[in-house]
């Protein structure tokens, strides 16, 4: 697929900025397995030629050496010639494949660049397989876009820095490589699953009965009733028709309608650094992400509290546009060291308006989390506690169990 200039958007509309590579030729040169075998065969031919003084073997030996030399000369040129840009999506989800795209440009007027292999230098524990792509040929003064599929195994930041360009062209005898440094970063969102249970919505909506004024927030209001006019009321809200009928001034009284709220309390602590505990912690994060997405999709105002130091607090908000914000915070959430979550919860300012349904997600059920539950039970209308790995947790949520 040839493109005339580097694109700034990926195929799915993800914005990305191409960065011109600052390449540094490392002079990385190594024999491949085939190359080593070829050298051995050529050496044997040379020895046979010397031993027997057979000119045709000398000729063949010369040809073998010639092909080695030609291979060495031809192989490095594409790397010196080509320019590279990387197109990365802003984010990806753990366990789900996505593509990093590369644009290889060949500024040469005449010569093609052949057989370029690209590989990202990434932490092997964070990804499955290799992030690599292969460009068989870049025509002169053309660009070629190649895609490298990738699956990330861990949430968090994925720094992209070094791209290793290598080639074994033309005979596969040598591998020459160069490193291009382009700084990029991706956020890997936690894996999400499917809620098996409905989100509990407390009966009776909390609503402050007040006369509507400019201080009213964006939340919807509805007509509640009429009352006598009092000094200081806004004359605009006087219900003139009823006032005339009754003979005294009445003003409209409005009731603020609050959305159903879902507040997620996430405890990212782990009992130990054993893999199963880490896995349970990731299940907690994934469950939180699942709750967030489900809540936002159902029109709830979702809030998020992370028991970290400093504590992560996202006030309850509604609307799908907030999805990325929640996922990003959950992707980056890390446990606080030597911090009592109960203490954090106790010290946290908790506005009375945040009084919806509360879900505490944790991987350890200890006294600290029981204290947290008690604190938030007092603040919210209802509270539900889910501990990763328990049957209740499994009944509540189905995760794509891909997280490492």
């Amino acid at each position, binding site marked *: 697929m040839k493109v005339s200039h580097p694109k700034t958007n990926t195929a799915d509309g993800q914005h990305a900025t191409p960065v011109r590579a600052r390449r540094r030729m490392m002079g990385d040169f190594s024999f491949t397995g085939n190359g080593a075998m070829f050298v051995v065969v050529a050496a044997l031919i040379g020895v046979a030629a010397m031993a027997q003084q057979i*000119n*045709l073997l000398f000729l063949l030996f*010369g040809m073998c050496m010639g092909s080695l030399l030609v291979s060495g000369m031809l192989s490095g040129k594409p790397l010196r010639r080509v320019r590279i840009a990387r197109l990365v999506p802003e984010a990806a989800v753990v366990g789900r494949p996505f593509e990093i795209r590369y644009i290889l440009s060949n500024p040469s007027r005449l010569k093609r660049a052949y057989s370029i292999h690209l590989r990202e230098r990434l932490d092997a524990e964070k990804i499955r397989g290799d992030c690599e792509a292969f460009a068989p040929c870049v025509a002169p003064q053309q660009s070629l876009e190649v895609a490298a599929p990738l699956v990330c195994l861990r949430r968090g930041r994925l720094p992209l820095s070094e791209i290793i360009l290598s080639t074994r062209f033309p005979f596969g005898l040598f591998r020459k490589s160069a490193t291009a440094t382009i700084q990029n970063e991706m956020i890997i969102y936690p894996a999400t699953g499917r809620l098996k249970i409905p989100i509990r919505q407390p009966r009776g909506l909390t609503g402050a009965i007040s006369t509507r004024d400019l201080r009213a927030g964006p939340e919807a209001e509805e007509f509640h009733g009429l009352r006598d006019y009092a000094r200081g009321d806004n004359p605009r809200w006087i219900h003139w028709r009823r006032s005339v009928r009754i003979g005294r001034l009445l003003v409209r009284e409005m009731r603020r309608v609050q959305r159903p709220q879902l507040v997620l309390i996430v405890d990212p602590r782990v009992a130990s650094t054993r893999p199963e505990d880490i896995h349970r912690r990731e299940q907690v994060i994934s469950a939180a992400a699942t709750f967030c997405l489900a809540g936002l999709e159902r029109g709830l105002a979702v809030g998020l509290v992370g028991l970290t130091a400093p504590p992560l607090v996202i006030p309850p908000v509604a609307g799908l546009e907030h999805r990325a914000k929640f996922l990003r915070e959950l992707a980056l959430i890390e446990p606080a060291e030597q911090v009592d979550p109960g203490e954090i919860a106790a010290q946290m300012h908790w506005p009375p308006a945040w009084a919806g349904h509360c879900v505490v997600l944790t991987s350890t059920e200890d006294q600290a989390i029981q204290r947290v539950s008690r604190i938030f039970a007092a603040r919210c209308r209802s509270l539900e506690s889910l501990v990763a790995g328990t049957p209740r947790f499994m009944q509540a949520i189905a995760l794509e169990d891909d997280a490492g």
Partner: protein
Amino acid sequence: MISQAAPAPAPHPAQPAAGMQRLGLLLAFLLTIAELPLAYIEGSVLRIAVLAICAFGGWWWIDRRGRQGFSSRIGTAGVLLAAGIYFVHEWIHSHPVLAISHFIVVMAALKFVQPRAARDYGQLIVLALLLLVIGGVVNETLAYAVCLSVFLTIGLYAVIVLHFEREIERVQQRRRQAGLPEPSMPPMPPLPSVRRVTALAALGTFFVGAVLFLVFPRLGSGLFDAAMPVLAASVTGYAPNTSFDQAQRISESDAAVMRVVLSMDGEPINDPDFVGYFRGNTADLYLATPRADGRVFYQWERTKERPAAVELSALLESHLASVKEPIAHVIAQHYWIEDLRQRYLFAIYPPMNIRGAKIGHYLDHYPSDDTLSVRGGVGGTLDYVVESATPYSATNLRLPARRKQPEPQLAPDSPVRKLVERIVGGLPKPAEPESIASAIEKYLSSRPFTYTLDNSDVNLNREPVEELLFRRRRGHCEYFATAMTVMCQLAGLDARFVTGYRGGVYNAIGGYYQVRQRDAHAWVEVLIPSRECWVVFDPSPASAQNRAVAADWLGVLRQYVDNLEFQWLNFVVAYSTQNQGKLKERVDSWISAANNPAGSGFGRLWAMFRSFALGEGLNFPLRIRYWALLIALVGLSILWLRLTTVLVVRGSRELREVWRARRTARVNRVEFYERLLRRLAREGFTRRAHQTPWEFAQDVIRARPQWSAVGQLTRLYYEARFGAGELNSGQTALIRRLVDSLG
């Protein structure tokens, strides 16, 4: 928001990639080519046929048809069993080097009918290379050069194609193992560009190979020459030992045995009518040997004599010391013998000096008859130079002390004795040895004696000379030479039976004499005491020896081909330390000429260039300006060259585009659909009048689900027939591929 690539469907194993198809075909061709030198040397048409059938059949069956091939277990077992049996058999009965080649051929043949991946193709390339290496050991003919050059181009092309296929396969395999989706791969490089790269690589490889070949140090002789047996290769008509125990018809062959460049006193001999007697071995004992079955057969043997191991230079010195008068003329002979099957070296009598890289420092010299032989074996092509005195002008060589020759073992009442007495009796008394020999020669070479190669009617129970002289009166050179030698010995002369080659065909293009199998000959040398030398007598009647070269285009072509082979032997196969020395001398002379302005044209040219480049004769400030101007001019020239190249390349690219557009326009018509209909009609599918093309295609696909290409072709037909625009080149290529896929 989040990029999620849908996993691409994995390619069906029964659909080989087009690149692999091409590669399979290339390798089939490559292996057949690599096997040719071996098959040629062994004269084995069967093996090349088996390999070619397996290679091309395997390609057709697996690469083209997409079949699975034999199970790898069966294949492995087959390889081990067949190769083991073959290897043991060949190790016992044949040369081990050739046995290894048989082993490789079996492996390659089986590899071709097994399921393959890119790695297997790589192994096939290595096998082909090994076959070529063995070919280089046993075959030094021009056929090897042709195979090598074909291998160099096709092999490199195959390696480059394999490289791309392997890289793609490797990436896809790793993705598959990691459970990653497989996005579509970018297109492969266009074939013309791959061909250009191949040509560039082949040129570079050839150039570097040639330079290394020229400068790589040579030792002169191999380290293990004595340990390596001589390979029997090309057929020659020469046999150093002569016996008369078979009655058969001898067939003649035009196969070249050796090539000789002759010069007399430094001047090349370019006479097509020149007849040289290139002697190999001599024999002076005519023996009757009883067989186990009671019969007696006759043969020639040389007198038992221990050869003297002489140094090459010593041979000349010993001869020169014995010269009574200055040698009148010296004939230098440069021989290129394709494969010396025996140890005797050929030379015009009497040899004075010999030198050759492969011969080594010492050789065996038989002082009694100046026969030369090499010690141990000499593998492959042998080239050496012999200098001989002209036998009839430089005759004053002191003869070595002679032993009395024993009489030929003939019956006491043999009629041959009476015949000799009659011939000698007819000469004036006292008869000179030379006149006796001449009389016998004249007797034998005249009527009723005739020359023939058909000896099928020879009576083996009878003494061969009697059989010739008194019954058959016809025979070939060995009979006549035997008869004359025996008769001379009966007449009391010192005579010996000589075998070798006579004459040869002059190749005017290369300036050498091509000696063929049919030029093998036998003649007689008689000691003439008055001339103090051995004189050559050739009693064979005018034979059917064909020295004329056909004047038609085929004859000329043969001369050219033979000359090409000669040049190959001369400059490549027989390249030696002497050649390296000459090359070095030539380079040194160029360098010295360059340093000597007055010396030569090259030197003057170099001096002019130097003066121009350095600005000689200018003072310093002027010289600086001159250099600046020069640098600017050179820079501008480079820029101009670069721009011109770009313009030319772009222009040619545009021309190619125009040509491709025209070609596409030609193909864009709907002939392909008509071809498709004809193809389907052969398979029994005929489109009925009421059917639309699409309905017809559906019927076909329903009946033959594997022909899904018919559906695609029909859609392309609609597009070509009713679409607004022309089909593009990609669609055209797709049409070709789909039509080909239907077989």
